Protein backbone atom coordinates (compact mmCIF):
# COMPACT_ATOMS: atom_id res chain seq x y z
CA UNK A 1 0.00 0.00 0.00
CA UNK A 2 1.39 3.42 -0.86
CA UNK A 3 2.13 5.87 1.96
CA UNK A 4 -0.53 8.28 0.67
CA UNK A 5 -3.23 5.63 0.60
CA UNK A 6 -2.86 5.02 4.33
CA UNK A 7 -1.91 8.57 5.33
CA UNK A 8 -5.05 10.14 3.86
CA UNK A 9 -7.22 8.10 6.26
CA UNK A 10 -5.23 9.17 9.35
CA UNK A 11 -7.99 11.31 10.94
CA UNK A 12 -10.31 8.31 10.84
CA UNK A 13 -7.84 5.58 11.74
CA UNK A 14 -6.07 7.53 14.52
CA UNK A 15 -8.94 9.53 15.99
CA UNK A 16 -12.23 7.83 14.97
CA UNK A 17 -13.49 10.92 13.16
CA UNK A 18 -16.91 10.03 11.77
CA UNK A 19 -19.74 12.13 10.39
CA UNK A 20 -23.43 12.84 11.02
CA UNK A 21 -26.31 13.54 8.67
CA UNK A 22 -27.74 16.99 9.50
CA UNK A 23 -31.26 15.86 8.54
CA UNK A 24 -31.78 12.48 10.22
CA UNK A 25 -28.84 12.76 12.67
CA UNK A 26 -27.59 9.24 11.91
CA UNK A 27 -23.87 8.89 12.70
CA UNK A 28 -21.49 7.13 10.28
CA UNK A 29 -18.02 5.69 10.46
CA UNK A 30 -16.03 5.96 8.28
CA UNK A 31 -17.49 9.27 7.07
CA UNK A 32 -19.73 9.13 3.99
CA UNK A 33 -20.55 11.80 1.47
CA UNK A 34 -24.20 10.74 1.20
CA UNK A 35 -26.62 9.59 3.92
CA UNK A 36 -27.87 6.11 2.92
CA UNK A 37 -30.95 5.99 5.19
CA UNK A 38 -32.31 9.51 4.98
CA UNK A 39 -35.48 9.93 2.92
CA UNK A 40 -34.04 13.12 1.47
CA UNK A 41 -30.60 11.66 1.07
CA UNK A 42 -29.57 13.83 -1.87
CA UNK A 43 -29.95 16.86 0.37
CA UNK A 44 -27.19 15.38 2.53
CA UNK A 45 -24.61 15.65 -0.28
CA UNK A 46 -21.97 18.18 0.77
CA UNK A 47 -23.73 18.76 4.11
CA UNK A 48 -22.59 15.80 6.20
CA UNK A 49 -21.07 17.13 9.45
CA UNK A 50 -17.92 15.86 11.19
CA UNK A 51 -18.76 13.84 14.29
CA UNK A 52 -16.30 12.46 16.82
CA UNK A 53 -16.86 8.91 18.09
CA UNK A 54 -16.07 8.21 21.75
CA UNK A 55 -14.56 4.82 20.93
CA UNK A 56 -16.77 3.00 23.45
CA UNK A 57 -18.92 0.09 22.43
CA UNK A 58 -19.59 -3.63 22.75
CA UNK A 59 -18.69 -6.76 20.86
CA UNK A 60 -21.45 -7.86 18.43
CA UNK A 61 -19.56 -10.90 17.19
CA UNK A 62 -15.95 -12.08 17.08
CA UNK A 63 -13.52 -14.72 15.87
CA UNK A 64 -10.06 -15.88 16.84
CA UNK A 65 -7.90 -15.66 13.75
CA UNK A 66 -5.19 -18.30 13.22
CA UNK A 67 -4.55 -17.78 9.49
CA UNK A 68 -3.57 -14.11 9.59
CA UNK A 69 -4.40 -11.19 7.36
CA UNK A 70 -1.38 -9.78 5.53
CA UNK A 71 0.85 -8.00 8.04
CA UNK A 72 -0.76 -9.64 11.08
CA UNK A 73 1.27 -12.86 10.92
CA UNK A 74 3.19 -12.05 14.13
CA UNK A 75 -0.05 -11.48 16.08
CA UNK A 76 -1.72 -14.91 15.74
CA UNK A 77 -3.87 -16.06 17.32
CA UNK A 78 -5.67 -12.72 17.58
CA UNK A 79 -9.25 -11.86 18.43
CA UNK A 80 -11.09 -9.91 15.74
CA UNK A 81 -14.48 -8.39 16.47
CA UNK A 82 -17.29 -6.30 15.08
CA UNK A 83 -17.96 -3.61 17.67
CA UNK A 84 -21.13 -1.57 17.95
CA UNK A 85 -20.16 1.88 19.22
CA UNK A 86 -22.43 3.78 21.63
CA UNK A 87 -22.98 6.35 18.85
CA UNK A 88 -24.32 3.61 16.55
CA UNK A 89 -21.74 2.82 13.85
CA UNK A 90 -20.21 -0.67 13.79
CA UNK A 91 -16.48 -1.21 13.19
CA UNK A 92 -14.18 -4.17 12.64
CA UNK A 93 -11.02 -4.33 14.71
CA UNK A 94 -8.93 -6.64 16.82
CA UNK A 95 -9.45 -6.99 20.57
CA UNK A 96 -6.27 -6.68 22.65
CA UNK A 97 -5.19 -6.60 26.31
CA UNK A 98 -7.29 -9.71 26.92
CA UNK A 99 -6.76 -13.42 26.43
CA UNK A 100 -8.55 -14.14 23.09
CA UNK A 101 -10.41 -17.03 24.73
CA UNK A 102 -12.08 -14.55 27.12
CA UNK A 103 -13.63 -12.39 24.39
CA UNK A 104 -17.41 -12.80 24.28
CA UNK A 105 -20.46 -11.28 22.59
CA UNK A 106 -21.55 -8.30 24.67
CA UNK A 107 -18.05 -7.55 26.03
CA UNK A 108 -17.73 -3.78 26.65
CA UNK A 109 -14.68 -2.36 24.91
CA UNK A 110 -12.98 0.97 24.24
CA UNK A 111 -10.90 1.89 21.19
CA UNK A 112 -7.19 2.16 21.82
CA UNK A 113 -4.45 3.51 19.54
CA UNK A 114 -2.08 0.74 18.44
CA UNK A 115 0.25 -0.47 15.75
CA UNK A 116 -1.80 -2.41 13.19
CA UNK A 117 0.84 -3.87 10.90
CA UNK A 118 4.05 -3.08 9.10
CA UNK A 119 4.98 -3.49 5.48
CA UNK A 120 8.02 -5.71 5.89
CA UNK A 121 11.25 -4.81 7.67
CA UNK A 122 11.76 -1.48 5.91
CA UNK A 123 8.24 -0.48 4.95
CA UNK A 124 5.63 1.85 6.38
CA UNK A 125 4.18 1.07 9.81
CA UNK A 126 0.39 1.35 9.95
CA UNK A 127 -1.25 2.60 13.15
CA UNK A 128 -4.93 2.76 14.02
CA UNK A 129 -7.60 1.58 16.43
CA UNK A 130 -7.87 -1.72 18.22
CA UNK A 131 -10.25 -2.44 21.08
CA UNK A 132 -9.48 -3.19 24.73
CA UNK A 133 -11.89 -4.39 27.42
CA UNK A 134 -13.32 -1.54 29.55
CA UNK A 135 -13.44 -3.73 32.63
CA UNK A 136 -9.91 -3.99 34.08
CA UNK A 137 -10.48 -7.50 35.38
CA UNK A 138 -10.28 -8.86 31.83
CA UNK A 139 -6.78 -7.50 31.40
CA UNK A 140 -3.92 -9.89 31.89
CA UNK A 141 -1.21 -8.80 34.34
CA UNK A 142 0.81 -6.01 32.75
CA UNK A 143 4.03 -7.25 31.29
CA UNK A 144 7.06 -5.03 31.80
CA UNK A 145 7.67 -2.65 28.91
CA UNK A 146 10.95 -2.18 27.10
CA UNK A 147 11.95 0.77 29.30
CA UNK A 148 11.23 -1.03 32.52
CA UNK A 149 13.95 -2.98 34.25
CA UNK A 150 13.18 -6.14 36.13
CA UNK A 151 15.57 -8.11 38.26
CA UNK A 152 16.77 -11.33 36.75
CA UNK A 153 16.75 -14.55 38.71
CA UNK A 154 20.35 -13.79 39.66
CA UNK A 155 19.43 -10.33 40.89
CA UNK A 156 21.21 -8.36 38.14
CA UNK A 157 18.91 -5.96 36.19
CA UNK A 158 18.17 -7.08 32.62
CA UNK A 159 15.97 -5.59 29.93
CA UNK A 160 12.63 -7.36 29.54
CA UNK A 161 11.20 -7.79 26.07
CA UNK A 162 7.97 -5.95 25.36
CA UNK A 163 4.77 -7.64 24.29
CA UNK A 164 3.18 -7.25 20.87
Amino acid at each position, binding site marked *: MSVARFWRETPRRYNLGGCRCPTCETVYFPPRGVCPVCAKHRQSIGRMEPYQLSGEGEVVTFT*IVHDAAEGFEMQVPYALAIVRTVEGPQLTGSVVDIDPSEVSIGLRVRATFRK*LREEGAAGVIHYGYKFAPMDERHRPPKRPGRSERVPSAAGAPVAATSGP
Partner: protein
Amino acid sequence: MRDVAILGVGQTRFGELWDRSFREIGIEAGFQALVDAKLSSGDLGALYLGNMASGSLIAQEHIAPLILDYAGLAGHHLGGIRIEGGGASGALALHEGWLAVASGAHDFVVVGGAEKLTDVPDTEANRVASGTADHEWEVVFGATLPALWAMIARRHMHDFGTTREQLARVAVHAHEMGSKNPNAHYRNKISLEAVLGATPVAEPLGMLDCAPFSDGAAAVVLGPLDRARKFTDTPVRLLASQVACDTMAVHHRREMTTLDSTVVAAKRAFAQARRAPADVRVAEIHDAYTISGLIALEDLGFVEKGESGRAFESGAFGPTGKLTVNTSGGLKAQGRPFGAVGVAQVVEIVRQLRGEAGDRQVGGAELGLAHDVGGTGATSVVHLMERVN
Protein backbone atom coordinates in the same frame (compact mmCIF):
# COMPACT_ATOMS: atom_id res chain seq x y z
CA MET B 1 -37.78 -9.62 -23.43
CA ARG B 2 -37.71 -13.05 -25.08
CA ASP B 3 -37.20 -16.45 -23.43
CA VAL B 4 -33.60 -17.63 -23.22
CA ALA B 5 -32.35 -21.22 -23.36
CA ILE B 6 -29.08 -22.83 -22.33
CA LEU B 7 -28.04 -24.81 -25.41
CA GLY B 8 -24.72 -26.24 -24.34
CA VAL B 9 -22.45 -26.61 -21.33
CA GLY B 10 -18.74 -27.29 -20.78
CA GLN B 11 -16.37 -27.51 -17.87
CA THR B 12 -12.76 -28.43 -17.17
CA ARG B 13 -11.70 -30.49 -14.22
CA PHE B 14 -11.29 -28.28 -11.14
CA GLY B 15 -8.19 -28.53 -8.99
CA GLU B 16 -4.49 -27.74 -8.98
CA LEU B 17 -3.96 -27.82 -12.73
CA TRP B 18 -0.22 -27.12 -12.69
CA ASP B 19 0.33 -28.34 -16.24
CA ARG B 20 -2.36 -26.13 -17.78
CA SER B 21 -2.45 -22.39 -18.45
CA PHE B 22 -5.29 -19.92 -18.02
CA ARG B 23 -5.89 -19.70 -21.76
CA GLU B 24 -5.89 -23.49 -22.17
CA ILE B 25 -8.59 -24.09 -19.58
CA GLY B 26 -10.68 -21.16 -20.80
CA ILE B 27 -10.67 -22.47 -24.36
CA GLU B 28 -11.38 -26.08 -23.33
CA ALA B 29 -14.54 -25.14 -21.45
CA GLY B 30 -15.73 -22.85 -24.26
CA PHE B 31 -15.25 -25.45 -26.99
CA GLN B 32 -16.96 -28.14 -24.92
CA ALA B 33 -19.99 -25.85 -24.62
CA LEU B 34 -20.02 -25.02 -28.35
CA VAL B 35 -19.72 -28.70 -29.33
CA ASP B 36 -22.45 -29.62 -26.82
CA ALA B 37 -24.71 -26.97 -28.40
CA LYS B 38 -23.79 -28.08 -31.95
CA LEU B 39 -23.27 -24.41 -32.72
CA SER B 40 -20.61 -23.12 -35.10
CA SER B 41 -18.36 -20.29 -33.99
CA GLY B 42 -19.66 -18.18 -36.86
CA ASP B 43 -23.09 -17.99 -35.21
CA LEU B 44 -21.74 -16.34 -32.08
CA GLY B 45 -22.46 -12.73 -31.17
CA ALA B 46 -20.22 -12.22 -28.15
CA LEU B 47 -18.26 -13.71 -25.27
CA TYR B 48 -19.01 -12.72 -21.67
CA LEU B 49 -16.17 -13.85 -19.42
CA GLY B 50 -16.40 -13.90 -15.63
CA ASN B 51 -13.07 -13.57 -13.83
CA MET B 52 -12.14 -12.14 -10.45
CA ALA B 53 -8.47 -11.33 -10.43
CA SER B 54 -6.40 -12.41 -13.43
CA GLY B 55 -4.35 -9.21 -13.12
CA SER B 56 -3.26 -10.04 -9.57
CA LEU B 57 -3.02 -13.80 -10.05
CA ILE B 58 -1.35 -14.20 -13.47
CA ALA B 59 -0.44 -10.57 -14.32
CA GLN B 60 -2.78 -10.71 -17.31
CA GLU B 61 -5.64 -8.28 -17.84
CA HIS B 62 -7.65 -7.93 -21.05
CA ILE B 63 -8.50 -11.62 -21.01
CA ALA B 64 -11.69 -11.76 -23.11
CA PRO B 65 -9.82 -11.05 -26.38
CA LEU B 66 -7.04 -13.37 -25.21
CA ILE B 67 -9.48 -16.30 -24.97
CA LEU B 68 -11.17 -15.39 -28.28
CA ASP B 69 -7.77 -15.16 -29.96
CA TYR B 70 -6.54 -18.57 -28.78
CA ALA B 71 -9.95 -20.08 -29.56
CA GLY B 72 -9.16 -19.15 -33.17
CA LEU B 73 -11.83 -16.50 -33.27
CA ALA B 74 -9.77 -13.31 -33.50
CA GLY B 75 -10.68 -13.06 -37.20
CA HIS B 76 -14.40 -13.12 -36.41
CA HIS B 77 -13.94 -9.87 -34.43
CA LEU B 78 -16.58 -10.84 -31.86
CA GLY B 79 -17.20 -8.65 -28.87
CA GLY B 80 -15.40 -9.97 -25.79
CA ILE B 81 -16.29 -8.55 -22.39
CA ARG B 82 -14.80 -9.43 -19.01
CA ILE B 83 -17.03 -9.13 -15.92
CA GLU B 84 -15.86 -8.89 -12.31
CA GLY B 85 -17.81 -9.16 -9.05
CA GLY B 86 -15.50 -11.10 -6.72
CA GLY B 87 -16.54 -14.73 -6.35
CA ALA B 88 -19.82 -13.92 -8.13
CA SER B 89 -18.05 -12.94 -11.37
CA GLY B 90 -19.17 -16.03 -13.28
CA ALA B 91 -22.84 -15.64 -12.34
CA LEU B 92 -22.65 -11.95 -13.23
CA ALA B 93 -21.28 -12.87 -16.66
CA LEU B 94 -24.25 -15.20 -17.13
CA HIS B 95 -26.58 -12.37 -16.16
CA GLU B 96 -25.01 -10.15 -18.83
CA GLY B 97 -25.26 -12.93 -21.42
CA TRP B 98 -28.90 -13.48 -20.51
CA LEU B 99 -29.62 -9.75 -20.91
CA ALA B 100 -27.96 -9.73 -24.33
CA VAL B 101 -30.01 -12.64 -25.67
CA ALA B 102 -33.28 -11.75 -23.89
CA SER B 103 -33.11 -8.21 -25.24
CA GLY B 104 -32.40 -9.37 -28.77
CA ALA B 105 -29.04 -7.59 -28.91
CA HIS B 106 -27.45 -10.97 -29.72
CA ASP B 107 -28.90 -14.32 -30.76
CA PHE B 108 -26.16 -16.64 -29.54
CA VAL B 109 -23.47 -15.90 -26.95
CA VAL B 110 -20.91 -17.85 -24.95
CA VAL B 111 -20.71 -17.16 -21.24
CA GLY B 112 -17.49 -18.33 -19.64
CA GLY B 113 -15.90 -18.24 -16.22
CA ALA B 114 -12.23 -18.96 -15.60
CA GLU B 115 -9.72 -18.51 -12.82
CA LYS B 116 -6.13 -19.63 -12.33
CA LEU B 117 -5.38 -19.52 -8.59
CA THR B 118 -2.48 -21.93 -8.16
CA ASP B 119 0.07 -19.97 -10.17
CA VAL B 120 0.64 -17.98 -6.94
CA PRO B 121 1.31 -19.23 -3.39
CA ASP B 122 -1.68 -19.67 -1.05
CA THR B 123 -0.70 -16.58 0.95
CA GLU B 124 -0.92 -14.47 -2.20
CA ALA B 125 -4.25 -16.06 -3.21
CA ASN B 126 -5.53 -15.27 0.31
CA ARG B 127 -4.47 -11.65 -0.06
CA VAL B 128 -6.17 -11.36 -3.45
CA ALA B 129 -9.37 -13.06 -2.21
CA SER B 130 -9.56 -10.67 0.75
CA GLY B 131 -9.80 -7.87 -1.82
CA THR B 132 -13.46 -8.84 -2.25
CA ALA B 133 -14.07 -7.55 1.30
CA ASP B 134 -13.64 -3.85 2.22
CA HIS B 135 -9.88 -3.39 2.09
CA GLU B 136 -9.69 -0.04 3.91
CA TRP B 137 -12.02 -0.82 6.83
CA GLU B 138 -11.91 -4.59 7.23
CA VAL B 139 -8.69 -6.04 5.83
CA VAL B 140 -6.36 -3.28 7.10
CA PHE B 141 -7.70 -4.00 10.60
CA GLY B 142 -6.89 -7.71 10.44
CA ALA B 143 -9.88 -9.27 8.66
CA THR B 144 -9.68 -12.10 6.14
CA LEU B 145 -12.58 -13.64 4.20
CA PRO B 146 -12.74 -16.69 6.54
CA ALA B 147 -12.52 -14.38 9.58
CA LEU B 148 -15.50 -12.34 8.37
CA TRP B 149 -17.55 -15.48 7.69
CA ALA B 150 -16.45 -16.85 11.08
CA MET B 151 -17.95 -13.78 12.75
CA ILE B 152 -21.22 -14.40 10.90
CA ALA B 153 -21.05 -18.04 12.11
CA ARG B 154 -20.40 -17.02 15.73
CA ARG B 155 -23.42 -14.73 15.70
CA HIS B 156 -25.62 -17.40 14.07
CA MET B 157 -24.62 -19.86 16.80
CA HIS B 158 -25.35 -17.22 19.46
CA ASP B 159 -28.74 -16.17 18.08
CA PHE B 160 -30.16 -19.51 16.92
CA GLY B 161 -28.29 -22.24 18.79
CA THR B 162 -26.60 -23.50 15.63
CA THR B 163 -23.89 -25.98 16.63
CA ARG B 164 -20.33 -26.58 15.46
CA GLU B 165 -21.40 -30.05 14.32
CA GLN B 166 -24.26 -28.64 12.22
CA LEU B 167 -21.78 -26.37 10.43
CA ALA B 168 -19.44 -29.30 9.82
CA ARG B 169 -22.25 -31.33 8.20
CA VAL B 170 -22.19 -28.95 5.23
CA ALA B 171 -18.59 -29.91 4.43
CA VAL B 172 -19.22 -33.62 4.98
CA HIS B 173 -22.14 -33.46 2.53
CA ALA B 174 -20.06 -31.54 -0.03
CA HIS B 175 -17.34 -34.20 -0.07
CA GLU B 176 -19.92 -36.99 -0.22
CA MET B 177 -21.32 -35.45 -3.42
CA GLY B 178 -17.89 -34.45 -4.75
CA SER B 179 -16.80 -38.08 -4.54
CA LYS B 180 -19.25 -38.76 -7.39
CA ASN B 181 -18.13 -35.89 -9.61
CA PRO B 182 -15.21 -36.65 -11.96
CA ASN B 183 -14.51 -32.90 -12.34
CA ALA B 184 -14.25 -32.23 -8.60
CA HIS B 185 -11.10 -30.90 -6.97
CA TYR B 186 -11.64 -33.25 -4.00
CA ARG B 187 -13.15 -36.69 -4.53
CA ASN B 188 -12.43 -38.00 -1.03
CA LYS B 189 -15.16 -38.36 1.58
CA ILE B 190 -14.49 -36.76 4.95
CA SER B 191 -15.85 -37.56 8.42
CA LEU B 192 -17.54 -35.21 10.84
CA GLU B 193 -14.65 -35.78 13.22
CA ALA B 194 -12.15 -34.74 10.55
CA VAL B 195 -13.94 -31.42 10.03
CA LEU B 196 -14.20 -30.77 13.78
CA GLY B 197 -10.56 -31.64 14.36
CA ALA B 198 -9.06 -29.74 11.42
CA THR B 199 -6.54 -26.94 11.91
CA PRO B 200 -8.35 -23.77 13.02
CA VAL B 201 -8.45 -20.94 10.45
CA ALA B 202 -10.73 -18.41 12.15
CA GLU B 203 -12.73 -19.88 15.04
CA PRO B 204 -15.22 -21.46 14.88
CA LEU B 205 -14.17 -22.28 11.30
CA GLY B 206 -11.37 -24.73 10.58
CA MET B 207 -9.51 -25.74 7.45
CA LEU B 208 -12.27 -28.14 6.32
CA ASP B 209 -15.00 -25.50 6.73
CA CYS B 210 -13.37 -23.50 3.93
CA ALA B 211 -13.43 -24.17 0.18
CA PRO B 212 -10.02 -24.60 -1.48
CA PHE B 213 -8.29 -22.41 -4.04
CA SER B 214 -8.71 -24.16 -7.38
CA ASP B 215 -7.98 -23.65 -11.05
CA GLY B 216 -10.81 -24.23 -13.46
CA ALA B 217 -13.12 -22.97 -16.16
CA ALA B 218 -16.73 -23.48 -17.20
CA ALA B 219 -18.87 -22.22 -20.08
CA VAL B 220 -22.43 -22.23 -21.37
CA VAL B 221 -23.97 -21.27 -24.71
CA LEU B 222 -27.15 -19.19 -24.64
CA GLY B 223 -29.68 -18.62 -27.39
CA PRO B 224 -33.36 -17.76 -27.93
CA LEU B 225 -35.67 -20.53 -26.65
CA ASP B 226 -37.80 -20.51 -29.81
CA ARG B 227 -34.75 -21.53 -31.89
CA ALA B 228 -33.33 -23.97 -29.36
CA ARG B 229 -34.74 -27.17 -30.90
CA LYS B 230 -32.60 -26.60 -33.98
CA PHE B 231 -29.51 -27.15 -31.84
CA THR B 232 -30.44 -29.50 -29.04
CA ASP B 233 -33.05 -32.05 -28.00
CA THR B 234 -32.61 -31.04 -24.39
CA PRO B 235 -32.81 -27.27 -24.07
CA VAL B 236 -33.00 -25.82 -20.59
CA ARG B 237 -34.92 -22.61 -20.13
CA LEU B 238 -33.21 -19.85 -18.13
CA LEU B 239 -36.28 -18.73 -16.20
CA ALA B 240 -34.81 -16.00 -14.05
CA SER B 241 -31.55 -14.10 -13.63
CA GLN B 242 -31.27 -11.63 -10.77
CA VAL B 243 -28.43 -9.66 -9.19
CA ALA B 244 -28.59 -7.72 -5.93
CA CYS B 245 -25.92 -5.81 -3.98
CA ASP B 246 -25.47 -4.75 -0.34
CA THR B 247 -22.87 -2.96 1.82
CA MET B 248 -19.25 -3.94 1.22
CA ALA B 249 -18.41 -4.42 4.91
CA VAL B 250 -20.10 -7.02 7.11
CA HIS B 251 -20.14 -4.50 9.97
CA HIS B 252 -22.47 -2.24 7.99
CA ARG B 253 -25.12 -4.90 7.38
CA ARG B 254 -28.65 -4.56 8.72
CA GLU B 255 -28.16 -7.90 10.45
CA MET B 256 -25.06 -10.06 10.95
CA THR B 257 -26.64 -13.39 9.98
CA THR B 258 -28.62 -12.48 6.84
CA LEU B 259 -27.34 -11.63 3.37
CA ASP B 260 -29.97 -9.15 2.24
CA SER B 261 -28.45 -9.30 -1.24
CA THR B 262 -29.36 -13.00 -1.44
CA VAL B 263 -32.81 -12.47 0.08
CA VAL B 264 -33.63 -9.78 -2.49
CA ALA B 265 -32.08 -11.56 -5.50
CA ALA B 266 -34.01 -14.74 -4.62
CA LYS B 267 -37.32 -12.93 -4.14
CA ARG B 268 -36.91 -11.18 -7.48
CA ALA B 269 -35.92 -14.43 -9.19
CA PHE B 270 -38.90 -16.41 -7.86
CA ALA B 271 -41.22 -13.54 -8.86
CA GLN B 272 -39.67 -13.38 -12.34
CA ALA B 273 -40.06 -17.16 -12.78
CA ARG B 274 -43.49 -17.31 -11.10
CA ARG B 275 -42.24 -20.16 -8.95
CA ALA B 276 -41.73 -20.75 -5.23
CA PRO B 277 -38.76 -22.12 -3.24
CA ALA B 278 -40.77 -25.32 -2.60
CA ASP B 279 -40.76 -26.03 -6.36
CA VAL B 280 -36.95 -26.32 -6.51
CA ARG B 281 -35.64 -29.91 -6.68
CA VAL B 282 -31.92 -29.25 -7.07
CA ALA B 283 -29.80 -26.24 -6.08
CA GLU B 284 -26.16 -25.20 -6.17
CA ILE B 285 -25.57 -22.87 -3.22
CA HIS B 286 -22.59 -20.81 -2.11
CA ASP B 287 -20.84 -23.06 0.41
CA ALA B 288 -17.44 -21.34 0.22
CA TYR B 289 -17.60 -21.62 4.02
CA THR B 290 -19.88 -24.03 5.89
CA ILE B 291 -21.71 -21.07 7.43
CA SER B 292 -22.33 -19.48 4.04
CA GLY B 293 -23.97 -22.73 2.92
CA LEU B 294 -26.28 -22.76 5.94
CA ILE B 295 -27.43 -19.15 5.78
CA ALA B 296 -27.95 -19.44 2.01
CA LEU B 297 -30.68 -21.99 2.73
CA GLU B 298 -32.42 -19.42 4.92
CA ASP B 299 -31.86 -16.42 2.65
CA LEU B 300 -33.07 -18.30 -0.44
CA GLY B 301 -36.30 -19.21 1.37
CA PHE B 302 -35.75 -22.97 1.73
CA VAL B 303 -35.95 -22.91 5.56
CA GLU B 304 -37.10 -20.48 8.25
CA LYS B 305 -34.53 -18.04 9.62
CA GLY B 306 -32.31 -19.77 12.16
CA GLU B 307 -33.40 -23.30 11.25
CA SER B 308 -30.77 -24.17 8.63
CA GLY B 309 -28.39 -25.98 10.99
CA ARG B 310 -31.05 -28.31 12.38
CA ALA B 311 -32.62 -28.86 8.94
CA PHE B 312 -29.26 -29.70 7.36
CA GLU B 313 -28.39 -32.09 10.18
CA SER B 314 -31.71 -33.92 9.64
CA GLY B 315 -30.71 -34.68 6.05
CA ALA B 316 -33.35 -32.40 4.51
CA PHE B 317 -30.91 -31.25 1.80
CA GLY B 318 -29.14 -34.54 1.15
CA PRO B 319 -29.55 -36.91 -1.82
CA THR B 320 -32.87 -38.21 -0.46
CA GLY B 321 -34.26 -34.81 0.56
CA LYS B 322 -37.06 -32.98 -1.20
CA LEU B 323 -34.37 -30.52 -2.25
CA THR B 324 -30.82 -31.72 -2.85
CA VAL B 325 -28.08 -29.10 -2.66
CA ASN B 326 -24.64 -29.04 -4.22
CA THR B 327 -24.72 -32.31 -6.13
CA SER B 328 -21.50 -31.12 -7.81
CA GLY B 329 -19.73 -31.13 -4.45
CA GLY B 330 -20.22 -27.38 -4.14
CA LEU B 331 -17.40 -24.92 -3.74
CA LYS B 332 -16.05 -27.04 -0.89
CA ALA B 333 -15.40 -30.25 -2.84
CA GLN B 334 -15.88 -29.46 -6.54
CA GLY B 335 -13.57 -26.49 -5.96
CA ARG B 336 -13.42 -22.75 -5.94
CA PRO B 337 -11.87 -21.15 -9.03
CA PHE B 338 -13.53 -17.83 -8.16
CA GLY B 339 -14.70 -16.50 -11.54
CA ALA B 340 -15.61 -19.97 -12.83
CA VAL B 341 -17.81 -20.97 -9.89
CA GLY B 342 -21.06 -19.26 -10.92
CA VAL B 343 -20.91 -20.76 -14.42
CA ALA B 344 -19.97 -24.23 -13.14
CA GLN B 345 -22.99 -24.16 -10.81
CA VAL B 346 -25.23 -23.62 -13.84
CA VAL B 347 -23.44 -26.37 -15.77
CA GLU B 348 -24.27 -28.79 -12.92
CA ILE B 349 -27.92 -27.72 -12.76
CA VAL B 350 -28.27 -28.15 -16.54
CA ARG B 351 -26.77 -31.66 -16.29
CA GLN B 352 -29.23 -32.51 -13.52
CA LEU B 353 -32.21 -31.15 -15.47
CA ARG B 354 -31.16 -33.09 -18.57
CA GLY B 355 -30.66 -36.28 -16.54
CA GLU B 356 -26.96 -36.43 -17.42
CA ALA B 357 -25.45 -36.18 -13.94
CA GLY B 358 -24.29 -39.81 -13.68
CA ASP B 359 -23.89 -41.25 -10.19
CA ARG B 360 -25.05 -38.05 -8.56
CA GLN B 361 -28.29 -37.68 -10.57
CA VAL B 362 -31.34 -36.81 -8.47
CA GLY B 363 -34.78 -38.00 -9.49
CA GLY B 364 -37.51 -35.74 -10.86
CA ALA B 365 -35.37 -32.66 -11.44
CA GLU B 366 -37.62 -30.12 -13.22
CA LEU B 367 -36.56 -26.84 -11.58
CA GLY B 368 -33.06 -25.91 -10.44
CA LEU B 369 -31.47 -22.92 -8.74
CA ALA B 370 -27.92 -21.53 -8.72
CA HIS B 371 -26.76 -19.09 -6.04
CA ASP B 372 -23.43 -17.28 -6.23
CA VAL B 373 -21.98 -14.76 -3.77
CA GLY B 374 -19.19 -12.21 -4.09
CA GLY B 375 -17.01 -11.53 -1.02
CA THR B 376 -19.10 -11.67 2.14
CA GLY B 377 -22.35 -10.93 0.31
CA ALA B 378 -21.94 -7.47 -1.21
CA THR B 379 -23.12 -9.18 -4.41
CA SER B 380 -25.51 -12.11 -4.77
CA VAL B 381 -26.76 -13.66 -7.99
CA VAL B 382 -29.64 -16.12 -8.32
CA HIS B 383 -30.55 -18.06 -11.46
CA LEU B 384 -33.54 -20.37 -11.96
CA MET B 385 -33.62 -22.97 -14.71
CA GLU B 386 -36.21 -25.53 -15.83
CA ARG B 387 -36.29 -28.49 -18.12
CA VAL B 388 -38.22 -27.91 -21.35
CA ASN B 389 -40.46 -30.92 -22.00
